[in-house]
Structures are given as C-alpha cells and as structure tokens.
C-alpha cells in the first residue's frame, strides 16, 4: 500500500529571498555534479578574495560567476526532472547512473 501526499500551494506569492524550491537528484551523476559545483563555488569565492591583483582578480570572480550560474541552472533543471534522465535510460550501467540514495 502506498501513502500519497498532496500539497496544495495556496500562497504562490513572493518567495522569501533565500528559500527556493529544489528538486532532489535521482542519479549519482547529478548528485556528484551538484556537490562539485557547490564546492567549486566555495573554493573559487575564497580564491578570488585572496587573488586580487589586476587581471587575476577579474578572472577569478568571472569563474565564481560561471560556476554560480552553472549550479543555478542545474537546480532549475532538477525542479522538473533529473537532467541525466535520458542519458541514463541509454546508459544505465555507467557509474553516473547509479540511483542516488541519501
């Protein structure tokens, strides 16, 4: 027997600044990408803070922007469906396509 939970969202209003609806990774590959991007953001922000002499500074912050946007895009895709869904249908045996369980 399966329990079903239905959520009615009456207040689809202004979202809190820092709270976002997110999906959960289904495949290991997506979980690994998410983790990698999260770590890269932290790492590159601290790098950028240290390395601030002319050209190196702007490149470091540009990298921060790139990975921040990449993570945001991944999380957005994840709201609908795991981005690896189609890839894993064709390649279920790869490591990336192990079902991820927390």
């Amino acid at each position, binding site marked *: 027997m399966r329990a079903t939970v239905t959520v009615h969202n009456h207040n689809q209003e202004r979202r809190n600044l820092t709270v976002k609806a997110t999906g959960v990774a289904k495949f290991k590959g997506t979980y690994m990408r998410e983790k990698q991007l999260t770590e890269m953001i932290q790492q590159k*922000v601290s790098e950028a803070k240290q390395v601030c002499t002319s050209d*190196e500074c*702007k490149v470091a*912050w540009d990298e921060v922007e790139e990975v921040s946007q990449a993570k945001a895009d991944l999380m957005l895709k994840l709201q609908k469906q795991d981005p690896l869904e189609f890839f894993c249908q064709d390649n279920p045996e790869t490591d990336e396509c192990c079902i991820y369980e927390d």
Partner: protein
Amino acid sequence: MAVCTIHTSTQSLNSRCSLYTPTKTHLGFNQRQVVFYSKRGSSSSSKRGSSSVITCSAGGDSQTIVIGLAADSGCGKSTFMRRLTSVFGGAAEPPKGGNPDSNTLISDTTTVICLDDYHSLDRTGRKVNGVTALDPRANNFDLMYEQVKAIKDGVAVDKPIYNHVTGLLDPPELIKPPKILVIEGLHPMYDERVRDLLDFSIYLDISNEVKFAWKIQRDMAERGHSLESIKASIEARKPDFDAYIDPQKQYADTVIEVLPTQLIPDDNEGKVLRVKLIMKEGVKHFSPVYLFDEGSTISWIPCGRKLTCSYPGIKFAYGPDTYFDHEVSVLEMDGQFDRLDELIYVESHLSNISTKFYGEVTQQMLKHADFPGSNNGTGLFQTIVGLKIRDLFEQLIATKQAAPVEATKA
C-alpha cells in the same frame, strides 16, 4: 527538393564542363557544392578562370531564420528562451542521447545554441591568459560565423560543446538546420559578419541595481556566497562587460531594458520593475508595438474606475525617441499585474502585438505563471517579442517562397 542559387562569374556556361562534389571539410562541415568549370571559346580569354559555383541548400523548402539574443544570464535556460520557444509551439529540451552537459535546446521548430560553445579558451586557458569569458579573445568568432552561416544555408554542422561544469571543451554535437535558430550568449552581435546573418536581434539590458538583486536571489542560499562576494563578482566583471558586451546594444533591433521601479520611493528590493521595450524603427518585417496612437507620446495608468489594481499599481508610457542615433519607439511598463483581468485589460489596449487571437498574450503569460517576471513588464515584453518574431518568421517565409530559385550575377 533542393533549392540552388547559381553564381556565375562569366557570361554563360560553356559546353565543356566538369563537376565534382567535395566531401567533408576538416572543420566537420557537410558541404555539397557543385562546381562547373567552363572553357571559354574563341573570344579574348579572361585573366581569371571562368568558373561558376552552384550551392545547393539541403533543406530545400525550409529556410532557417536566425535570431540573436544578447544576455548575461547563462545559456539556453533563461526564461526568455523558454517563453520564446513556447510561442512557436512545444517545449525546448536538451538533445536526447547526446552529451548530458550540452547547452543546446531543441524543439519542433527552434534550436537554441549557446555561444559559450564557441569559447576558444577553456577555463584553464582563460586563467593562464588572464582573460574573462566576456573578452573577445576567449571566443572563436571565425568558427561562430562559419557555422551560423552554414546552418542558415541549410547545412548541418558539428558544433563544439563548452562544458560549464568541468570548464572544458567537449567533443562536438551535430546541429541540423531548424526553422528558427536562436544564438544566445554574450557576443551574438559583436562580430560584424555574424551580425549580418541575424534576421532579428535582441539585447537584454539589466541595470546594475536589478542585476544585483537578481544575483542575490540566485546565490544567497549558497554556502560560499555572501552579499560582499556577490557584489565583488559583479564589480570585477563590470569593466569587461562595459567594454565588450554593452556596446552591442546599439546594433539590436530591440532592447529590453530592466530598471528599478519609480512607483515605490527608495525601493531597492528589485521585485517591482520598470521595463522598457525599445524598438528600432524601419526594421524589415517588424512593426513596433504601440499604445493608442502610433508615433504620439502617451502616459497611461490603467487602474481607475474600470480596473482596480493593488499597490503599487501599473503605469505605462509610450513614445518616439532616439537611441544611439536611431529612431526608436519606446513602450514602458512600471509595476506589476496581480490579477488576470489586469493583464487582459492591458493587452486589449496594445496595438501591433501580432497576436493570432484576442487574449493570446494573456494566455501565454498564464501558461508560464511560474516563470520569473510573469507578473511584470519582463514577462509581458518577452512574450510580445516572441509573437513579433513569429510574425517576422511568417513574413520572411512568405517572401522567400515567392522566389525559390534566383540566378544572380557575381
């Protein structure tokens, strides 16, 4: 059925002809060219070899129109792209069965290419050379031009993939010519040759205050980020942005400018927005949207006796202006929609919006009510621009179908 354009550099094709079809070029193009070499007769020989080139476009009946979109908000996943592809019908999805980190989006009618795929330097290369992704030196405009031109001519190409997760250039993916090709990214109008290929171009101009507010929304939940780091990132990229990206807006057929609202004094939350739709006059197959009376100056607050709006309300402005020495028409919306009837009321007062039925704009907005900007000018104008592009596409197809085979003299 192939449509062929004949270019002749001589007066006529003579009897002695030979033809060959070259195979794939090293750049991975699938070209089909038929070259006729003709031997001239007794008349004075020309210094140049007399040759004619017939180029056949594979697509035949279908022509590809190319739209350029300049935006600093990542690639192919932006709200604008999703609205645009929805207007043409269908949802744009990443190509199935290929590289899962592909930036490309494909629907029945539309293919969206991310211009980051034309990076000549990957993340390490940019670091070594001290250039940001905004810098033209990090991008291969020759390849961008060649491939966009090929697709426009109906030839499929093997386009590189820039992987935003690894920061590397992955093996290429095949792009077949669609009905509508959208090239989205930082530099769609930077290179003059690429610019000339565009049938329509849009520049999304986000003001600094709004950009800051949006990036806070995007990044504040990340452990690595803080208000300071978000601010530092925007400021560090600003010089390159101002030098290389911003100047493209003078070339755009339409600019969507997003500013903070004027309806709420000292508002810095960036939630209520003032959005301007700046439309160039004299663009072929594009008639600017207007309010009430084309070419006049209008200020309009729809809220009143017939329509009740909640705070801060809605305010429209429309009028002619000049933008980088071009004649333009500007339609502006400040505020936000709270209810369906506000949206339909506004739609019914706009002209030249290229809808196919009454309420189409409202319907499209409702379809994507969960998208950001669905309650303000960004969503409204992005939807309208989508409809204008559909209209442009249909006009262009009608024009091209009227003259399928042209003989041109070089």
